[in-house]
């Protein structure tokens, strides 16, 4: 069994607003093993960013965070003092934010923003600092590093900014990289380049990656394991193979059906009808039920338990209950199951 580097159990995040509470994350379980890439996939508002911010202790003061476990390499992060958290962030756990333009300070030179990580963690100065900054910029494929280091964010192109943000996250050689939709703001060619870059850095630096996206097409390209998130919960989690070829949750089916056939990244995201629930109230039963053509009566009353299918694959769905009536997944999904059965057979032979 691989070494667990991040362990999250029963994470809840509730925001208090003047209008009431927002139940953004409702019992998330996640494990990130050493050296793997785990993708978290879900619609906008499903709580992906909130989960990662909870992990890094970056939530605002109106957020209440509770968890049975929230740990990094066995070290419990809840109630960690601010100073100790600062020691972890940037050096052990690095984060790439969603939007590379707004994630950079508009009035600080690129070199200074990168160097700041090393100033606070390694107390580097002048020449040594400059050398490391230049090396980091070069390693993400940005030429003429000294020139670039003197520029301001608005003087760079979108692709350059995304590379800068990645270089900044990796400059102190962290153990874990949390990438929050690092490709969403980019066009298709740039997306591919950035993914290739992250993969290359992963092997070079022995990283474990938590990769957030709402694009399953991207996931196929990079993830070892996939967690599907809906309305603040993980509804299905498994290896990439299990999620793509043996999916069990109707929400996962819907996501897979929305991916274009040639699995090319595309502008259109989910064509699933309906909208996610309003999290101002805690949903009763299965939050996905109102949009789920396979919903059972019990889905509207009681939240489904977690069903473990293999050592790596689990699902939250009443369909897997022994008492559930028989059902037929959509044809495209059945085709995938078929594929999966063949692959398993081939593996046996």
């Amino acid at each position: 069994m691989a070494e667990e580097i991040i362990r999250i159990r029963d994470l809840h995040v509730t925001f208090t607003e003047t209008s009431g509470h927002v139940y953004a994350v409702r019992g998330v379980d996640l494990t990130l093993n050493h050296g793997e890439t785990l993708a978290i996939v879900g619609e906008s508002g499903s709580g992906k960013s909130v989960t990662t911010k909870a992990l890094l202790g970056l939530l605002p003061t109106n957020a209440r965070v509770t968890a049975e476990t929230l740990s990094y390499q066995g070290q419990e992060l809840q109630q960690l003092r601010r100073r100790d958290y600062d020691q972890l962030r940037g050096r052990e756990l690095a984060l790439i934010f969603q939007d590379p333009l707004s994630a950079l300070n508009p009035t600080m030179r690129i070199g200074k923003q990168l160097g700041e990580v090393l100033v606070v963690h390694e107390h580097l100065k002048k020449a040594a600092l400059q050398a490391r900054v230049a090396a980091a910029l070069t390693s993400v494929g940005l030429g003429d590093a000294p020139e670039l280091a003197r520029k301001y964010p608005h003087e760079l192109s979108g692709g350059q900014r995304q590379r800068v943000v990645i270089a900044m996250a990796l400059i102190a050689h962290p153990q874990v990289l949390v990438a929050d939709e690092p490709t969403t703001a980019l066009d298709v060619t740039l997306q591919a380049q950035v993914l290739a870059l992250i993969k290359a850095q992963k092997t070079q630096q022995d990283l474990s990656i938590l990769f957030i996206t709402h694009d399953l097409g991207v996931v196929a390209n990079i993830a070892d394991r996939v967690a599907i998130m809906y309305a603040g919960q993980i509804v299905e989690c498994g290896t990439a193979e299990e999620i793509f070829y043996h999916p069990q949750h109707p929400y996962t089916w819907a996501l897979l059906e929305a991916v274009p056939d040639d699995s090319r990244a595309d502008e259109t995201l989910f064509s699933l009808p309906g909208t996610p629930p309003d999290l101002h109230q805690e949903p009763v039963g299965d939050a996905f039920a109102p949009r789920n053509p396979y919903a059972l009566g019990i889905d509207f009353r009681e939240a489904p338990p977690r069903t473990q299918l293999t050592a790596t694959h689990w699902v939250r769905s009443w369909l897997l209950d022994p008492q559930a009536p028989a059902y037929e997944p959509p044809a495209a999904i059945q085709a995938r199951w078929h594929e999966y059965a063949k692959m398993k057979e081939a593996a046996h032979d």
Partner: protein
Amino acid sequence: MVKVIVRRLVELAVALFLITSATFFLLAAIPGDALSAQTDNLPEAARQRVYAQSGLNKPVLERYATTMTSMLHGNFGESIADPGMTMSKVVHEKLPVSLRLGLQQVLLGIPLGLFFGILAAIYKNTWIDHTVTVLSLLLMSVPSLVLGLLLQSYFGGKLGWFPILGWPEGSQLWFGGWALTILPTVAGALTHVATYARLLKNSMLDILGSDYVQTARAKGVPEYRVVTHHIVRNAAIPVITRLPMTVAFSITGSVFIESIFVIPGIGQYFVQALNNRDVPIVMGETVMLAALYIGSLFLTDLLYMAVDPRIKLYDRKEG
């Protein structure tokens, strides 16, 4: 950079020319002139003598030409209504009064405003924030004239804590005689408190919630450094770039306050000169005020370029 300055100076000259010309002809168009009050009861012959002496009997265009040429030489002439008064005397006797009043208002008002702005931003959505917001809206909507009258009648009249009228003179022109200056200073400063509290609160909130502040925290930057290196510098941009205009306004804009507290500054004297159709003084003060404003606009540009790298008012090709 040199080109920028040259261009601004050319703009300044053109603006001054237009403003002074407009002022001159507007004054000429109003019935009556600087001498009408003194001469209306004189016999015709005597009247004409007085007019001939001052040059006011000449045709408008000729007077315009004379005035503009002598102004070009830096000579604004002597006051007609207030004999013996010249622009150089205005600069030496009246300007310091307005300068001190304006600077005192700024020095009292802006730091207080910034303080309340920071408080309101940090304690957002608490009673502190709400109080600051309501008070600043109130203060911004009440004219300083009304504030001045209220302060005057309450603290000066009813409580009798401060003198009601006047301004320190002679050796106390720049320093001292504080009691006289307190009410007019506060009356003008309150507007600055309100403006700057709002300004800083809004820009702090923008920046506190911004992604790059989160990025800094995600990098492991300690909170004090996040504040000093990321928040303050960016939140200060709108404040710093607004300073020159505030100072210019404070110096020139205290007309009402100078009037109700009978403070012998340039604002009050300008109003008096206008009432008297005192062309030399009106023209001289117009040039002085316009130069102050245009100068502060220029300073604003420079400050923008200095503090915000995104702003390139004059890029290299052009400037």
